[in-house]
């Protein structure tokens, strides 16, 4: 049996008496885009935070390339190849676009306090390589014009692309995107869809898309998982999930 790059197995999260996730299981095939959908409060963000290890599930397991991620501290998640973007922008607001993307490459570089204070030759080479790699990513996402601009003052849509560039700088094999479409206009949305597909096709990155925007999820996902009240209610191709009576019920109510 071929297992996916990411396996979520029977994950359960409780906050006090509230069960936020109740035994959710699914696998993500490598090199595909998987959409995770569900109404407000379904547990999407909770699951997302488990995947980036900001929460620890009370029960169940999450395996990345066959190995559990639950015994890694949060700052190791980028090291092992999982990158993420945030729903509400979480950029380093006083830094330039280039610097933000370079921080994204933190886990792919090694220089430390001592070598940096002394400006050793190997760390100068590492720094230059990181600069060039970051610049290539900035170029890739069409941010060249603002490369040296402080991110704090950039338009929302641009900042979202900076986040994407920053996440890619860690060279992830799996990219977790938390509501990337939020706050984007129609044109930006279409562009976003293309970029995500490009990231999959050209860079071989597997993408988990947690998204409210049905149009985007259904048009670019290879597979969709729907959850509601902390439980998985449907899983399959976009068409299958779209036509699943359970999903329709969850979104539209039982119909009186």
């Amino acid at each position, binding site marked *: 049996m071929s297992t996916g790059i990411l396996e979520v197995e029977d994950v359960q999260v409780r906050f006090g008496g509230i069960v936020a996730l109740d035994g959710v299981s699914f696998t993500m095939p490598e090199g595909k885009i998987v959409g995770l959908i569900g109404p407000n409060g379904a547990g999407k963000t909770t699951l997302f935070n488990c995947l980036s290890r900001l929460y620890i599930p009370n029960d169940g397991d999450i395996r990345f390339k066959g190995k559990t991620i639950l015994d890694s501290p949060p700052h190791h998640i980028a090291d092992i190849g999982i990158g993420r973007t945030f729903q509400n922008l979480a950029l380093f*607001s006083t830094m330039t676009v280039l610097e933000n993307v370079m921080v994204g490459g933190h886990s792919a570089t090694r220089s430390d306090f001592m070598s940096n204070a002394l400006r050793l030759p190997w760390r100068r080479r590492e720094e230059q390589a990181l*600069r060039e790699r970051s610049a290539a990513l900035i170029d890739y996402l069409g941010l060249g014009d603002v490369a040296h601009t402080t991110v704090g003052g950039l338009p929302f849509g641009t900042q979202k692309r900076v986040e994407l560039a920053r996440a890619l700088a860690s060279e992830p094999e799996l990219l977790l995107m938390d509501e990337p479409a939020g706050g984007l206009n129609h044109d930006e949305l279409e562009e976003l869809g293309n970029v995500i597909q490009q990231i999959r096709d050209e860079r071989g990155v597997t993408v988990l898309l947690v998204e409210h925007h049905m149009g985007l999820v259904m048009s670019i996902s290879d597979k969709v998982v729907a959850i509601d009240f902390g439980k998985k209610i449907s899983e399959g191709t976009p068409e299958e999930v779209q036509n699943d009576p359970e999903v329709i019920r969850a979104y539209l109510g039982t119909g009186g």
Partner: protein
Amino acid sequence: MTSTQVNGNVPAFLNENPKDRIVVLGVPLPLLERVGLFVLLAAVVVLPMVYDGYDIYEFGKILMYMLAVLGLNLLTGFNGQFSLGHSAFFAVGAYSTAIMMDQLGMPYWTTIIPAAAVCFVAGFLFGLPALRLDGLFLALATFALAIATPQLLKYDGIAHLTGGVQGIVLDTPYPPAWIDSIVMSITGEELSVDRWKYMFTAFVAVIMFAGAWNLVHSRTGRALIAIRDNPLSAKTMGINLAMFKSSAFGVSAMYTGVAGSLFAIMDEYLAPESFTFAEAIKFLVGGVVGGIASLFGAIFGGWFVLEIPNIADLVASSLADYINNPQGLTGLIYGLFLIFTVYVMPMGAAGLVQILVHRISTKR
């Protein structure tokens, strides 16, 4: 493969410096910066040729305070951790040097590196429990450290090392014979101890300043700023918060501690009363008036905390014809200076320079 893929070609914007386009009075900004740096370095070298005695001693003190302010700025300005207790690390550095000289008979110049190491370890260890404290609570914990330090230094159990209330009198730091002979052969004069103290301090200060500059403009510096700007996001980028925050505490304590070492060497004497809470506040004031998260601002900060109290004193004395006992007004006048300074330059000296450059510059 699209044309934007990495092909070993570097996109043009990478090597563009946005500052190249800023022209100040006909001079491109990067050139102006380079000239400014050169003038500054030249001043550091030329000062001891011009000044001697108390004047050059004061310049040494400015550089010493600059290091202390720089240390606090690395922690607070760049990493966003507050400290009201840096007088403690200042004391650790000063007493390390003093005890090594006094008890172990080590020459003054050999004590700097071990004292720096002691301060780094002290700062790092203090930084570990500080990880659990944020903002105001960290300020309180460090405040406690500042309050406890003079008391601890007076403690009977360690008085045989620290000299208790009496403090420690140290040997005069004479210049090494070979430096003396070089200076003698060039100038025909003997190198005075005051000039040598300044040269030694400047040597240490310039090296440490360069180290801080490198650190801030590197992966490490970016990680420190990232933690300040957005800790959660920094963690997600793979930054080990605990390691970086406690190391930042260590490095910060090391800078302020080396300033303490230089203080002990320059004054040839130290006592617990030099390491009170007021000293910690001085470093904070220096950091704020110089400019938070600005390295060059620390030079102004060092000058400010050393000289403004003296100037306030002078102003107070000049009022003697009009007021009885005007010395009592020194604190008030210092306060007015401080209020005026933060009013005129709310972003510190570094911020003011930026605003001025912005005002008089034109963009190409």
